[in-house]
C-alpha cells in the first residue's frame, strides 16, 4: 500500500491541476496498488466502518527493453501459423490489439475471433516471461517492420501491434485505457485469477468487448469521423460550451437537490461526449481517464435511453478495487443529456431517482434544457464564423483543466481516409512535442498537403493545421487571432473549477 494517511490517492492527479508535461509515461507507471478510496468514504460516513475489502497485490515496474537480442529471438521463434496468419485481410489490418492472460490464454482481439489465436498468444506470453525471467519487463519490440507494444498488468498482458509510426507511449496509453475499461466492469478480475490462474476470462468479458472496441475507435476500420478520438490522444475531455450563467444554474440545481445525500461522490452531466457539469464530494476528484470511461459507456449504451438504470461501475483511477454505484438517466425525452449520480452506497437508487427528477424539473424551469439542446449539435468551433477560414483544423488543450477544444471537422478532413491522415499528423506532432528525451516547445512543419504548427505555451497546447501554401507571417497572425478568441470565450468553452456538493 502506497500510503496509509488520509490523503486520497487520487489527489495527486486532480482533474483541476492535472498538468502533464511528462505524464504519458507516468500514466502507465502509476498503477501501483492504491488506497481504497471507496472504503475510506464509507468509513468516514459511518465511523464503525464496513469491513475492508482491499487485498490486491501488485508489483510491476516498467523498464524499457529493446535490446537486439529480443528482436532476434522473436524472429528465431518458430511460430506455427494460426488460422488467421493466412488471412491477408487480417494481416494487413492497420493495428491489432490482443489481450491474453498471464498464462498466455487469448482473451480479446480487436479483429476477429481471439479463440483462433492460441499460437500467437502463446508466443507473446513466451516473450513476456522470457524477459521477466531476467527481472525485467518488455516494453516493445520491432519485428519485420511491425511494432509490438506491451503492457503488463497483474493477471493480464495487453499487446498492440502496428506497422504505423505511432509512438510507443501512445500505444501504451491506449492499452492502458483498455485495461482500465476491463477493470471498470470487472474490478474483481485479479481475485478471479488469484483463485484460478487458468480461468477463461472471456465469459466474464462478454458485453465488455463492445466497450473495448468502441474505445479503439480511431481505427481505419471504423468509419466514424469525430473529434472524440483526440481526447484519448491528449488525455483530456471535451466540454459543452455554455454561458457561465447557464452552467451555474445547472450546478446549483444539482447542488440543491443532492447536498443532503451523504454517500454521493460525483454528479456528472454530459451530452454528446462532452462534459456539462461535474459536481463532487469535497476532497475527491475525477481523473480524465475515468471520465472518458464514463463517456465511452454512455456512448455505447442505447439502453440508458429507455429507462433509469442502476449500475455498479469501477473508476480505476479513483479506486481500482471497488465499485461506485451509478444512477444513469437521460434528463428528459426532449433533452438528451445524460446525468450520472455516483454513490458508494448500493442502496440509494430511489433517493437518487428522486433527486434526478427534481433536478430535471429545476432545469426545465430555468430554461437550461433549451440551452443545453441548443449546444448539443455543436460539432466544434466553426473557423469561418470566427474569421479564420485559412485554418483547416485545430486542437487546443487547456493544460490546467485537461480540457480539449477542437475545430469542426470539415473539408478536406470529412472523408475517412483524410481524417485518418489528420489523426496521424496529430499523433506524430503530439509525440514529437512530448518526447521524453527531447521535449519540444514549437514545431513548424510544412508538408505536402498541409502546414502544421504545434505550440506549447504556459497554459495551453495548440496544434493547428493550415493550407500548405500559406505564408509564415500569416500563420503567426492567425494563431494569435485564434488564441485571443479562445481567451475571450474561455468561460463558455471551458470549465474552470468543479464545485463541491
Amino acid at each position, binding site marked *: 500500500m502506497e500510503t496509509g494517511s488520509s490523503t486520497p490517492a487520487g489527489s495527486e492527479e486532480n482533474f483541476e491541476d492535472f498538468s502533464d508535461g511528462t505524464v504519458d509515461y507516468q500514466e502507465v507507471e502509476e498503477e501501483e496498488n492504491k488506497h481504497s478510496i471507496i472504503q475510506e468514504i464509507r468509513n468516514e460516513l459511518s465511523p464503525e466502518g464496513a469491513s475492508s475489502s482491499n487485498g490486491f497485490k501488485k508489483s510491476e515496474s516498467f523498464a524499457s527493453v529493446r535490446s537486439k537480442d529480443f528482436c532476434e529471438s522473436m524472429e528465431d521463434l518458430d511460430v506455427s501459423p494460426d488460422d488467421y496468419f493466412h488471412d491477408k485481410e487480417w494481416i494487413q489490418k492497420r493495428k491489432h490489439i490482443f489481450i491474453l492472460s498471464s498464462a498466455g490464454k487469448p482473451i480479446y482481439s480487436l479483429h476477429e475471433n481471439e479463440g483462433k489465436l492460441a499460437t500467437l498468444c502463446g508466443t507473446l506470453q513466451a516473450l513476456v516471461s522470457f524477459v521477466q525471467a531476467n527481472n525485467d519487463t518488455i516494453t516493445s519490440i520491432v519485428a519485420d517492420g511491425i511494432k509490438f507494444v506491451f503492457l503488463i498488468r497483474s493477471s493480464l498482458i495487453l499487446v498492440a501491434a502496428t506497422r504505423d509510426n505511432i509512438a510507443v507511449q501512445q500505444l501504451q496509453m491506449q492499452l492502458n485505457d483498455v485495461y482500465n475499461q476491463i477493470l471498470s466492469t*470487472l474490478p474483481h478480475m485479479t481475485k478471479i485469477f488469484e483463485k484460478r490462474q487458468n480461468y477463461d476470462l472471456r465469459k466474464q468479458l462478454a*458485453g465488455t468487448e463492445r466497450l473495448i472496441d468502441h474505445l479503439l475507435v480511431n481505427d481505419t476500420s471504423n468509419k466514424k469521423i469525430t473529434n472524440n478520438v483526440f481526447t484519448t490522444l491528449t488525455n483530456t475531455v471535451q466540454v459543452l460550451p455554455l454561458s457561465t450563467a447557464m452552467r451555474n444554474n445547472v450546478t446549483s440545481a444539482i447542488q440543491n437537490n443532492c447536498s443532503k445525500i451523504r454517500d454521493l461522490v460525483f454528479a456528472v452531466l454530459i451530452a454528446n461526449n462532452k462534459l456539462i457539469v461535474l459536481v463532487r464530494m469535497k476532497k475527491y476528484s475525477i481523473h480524465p481517464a475515468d471520465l472518458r470511461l464514463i463517456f465511452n459507456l454512455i456512448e455505447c449504451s442505447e*439502453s440508458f435511453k*429507455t*429507462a*433509469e438504470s442502476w449500475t*455498479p461501475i469501477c473508476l480505476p483511477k479513483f479506486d481500482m478495487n471497488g465499485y461506485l454505484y451509478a444512477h444513469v438517466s437521460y434528463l428528459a425525452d426532449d433533452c438528451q443529456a445524460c446525468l450520472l449520480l455516483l454513490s458508494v452506497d448500493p442502496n440509494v437508487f*430511489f433517493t437518487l431517482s428522486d433527486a434526478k427528477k427534481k433536478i430535471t424539473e429545476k432545469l426545465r424551469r430555468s430554461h437550461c434544457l433549451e440551452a443545453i439542446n441548443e449546444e448539443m449539435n455543436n460539432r466544434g468551433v466553426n473557423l469561418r464564423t470566427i474569421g479564420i477560414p485559412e485554418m483547416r483544423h485545430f486542437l487546443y488543450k487547456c493544460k490546467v483543466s485537461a480540457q480539449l477544444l477542437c475545430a469542426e471537422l470539415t473539408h478536406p478532413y470529412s472523408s475517412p481516409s483524410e481524417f485518418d491522415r489528420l489523426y496521424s499528423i496529430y499523433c506524430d506532432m503530439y509525440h514529437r512535442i512530448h518526447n521524453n528525451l527531447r521535449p519540444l516547445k514549437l514545431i513548424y512543419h510544412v508538408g505536402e498537403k498541409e502546414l502544421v504548427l504545434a505550440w506549447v505555451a504556459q497554459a495551453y497546447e495548440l496544434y493547428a493545421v493550415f493550407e500548405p501554401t500559406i505564408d509564415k507571417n500569416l500563420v503567426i497572425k492567425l494563431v494569435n487571432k485564434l488564441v485571443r478568441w479562445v481567451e475571450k470565450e474561455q468561460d463558455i468553452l471551458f470549465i474552470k473549477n468543479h464545485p463541491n456538493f
Partner: protein
Amino acid sequence: MKAIEAKVVILGSEGVGKTSIVTRYLKNVTSSDQGPTISASFFSCKLYLDGVKVKLQVWDTAGQERFRAVAPMYYRNANAAILVFDLSQHKTYRDLKMWAQELQRNVQDPMILTVVGNKLDLHATRTVSREEAFLFASSIGANYMETSALNEQGLNQVFLRIAEGLVRLANENKSQTLRRYDSSNSISAYSNVFADDDQAFHLPSVHLGIPVEEGDVHSSDVGRLETPSWSIDHIAHGSVETTGWCCY
C-alpha cells in the same frame, strides 16, 4: 388493504427478450431494439385488481455472465421474479435453473415466481417443449407462461398473474418485505414517469385463479393475442405447496 407495492426482478440470459417484455408491456418504447441492458434498468407500473392498487417496481436486469456477481443487489428483497428463457434456445432454458437455485438459496421471504418462455412466434424452431418447461416451473413452484414480446402476446397475463399472486401473498400476510397500504394514495413516494395515473393500466378485475380463457392449453393458435399458455388445471398443479419460500 387498498394498495400494495412490490419489487419484481426479471432474470434470464442475455438476448431472451427480458427488456422487450417489459418495454412492450409498458408500451413506452417507440424504437424496438435498445441493445444490451447495462446491469439493470428500472420501470414501474400500476395495476388495479379487485379494487386493490398494485404497484410494481420492476428491475430488468442484464443477463451477462459478469452480471451474476452483482445480481444479489437487484433480487434482494424482491417479492416476485420473472425467469425468462428463449424457447428456441435450449441453453437459455438451462441457464434458468441456475437463477432459480440462486434465488432459492438467497431469498428467504416468500416470492411469486413465474417462468416465461419467450419468442413464442419462433415456435417452429422451438427447442424447449411446453411440457418440459411446465414441469420445471412446477418443480420450483412457479407459474409457467409463454409469450411473444415481438407480437405482444401474453404480456398482460404475465403481469396480471404476478399481481394476483402478490395480492394473495399480501392477504396471507406471510411476506416481511411486501409493502401494504390502507390507502391507495400512499404510494407516491417514488412516482415514475411511466406510472402517472393517467397512464396506469386499468385491467378488468379478475378473480384469483380463474384463467382468462378456457381451453388454451390445447390450442396451438399462437396468432391470437394474449394467449395464456396453461389452463387452470396446470396452475393448480403449480401451486402445490412446495418449498415454502414461494407461493402460487
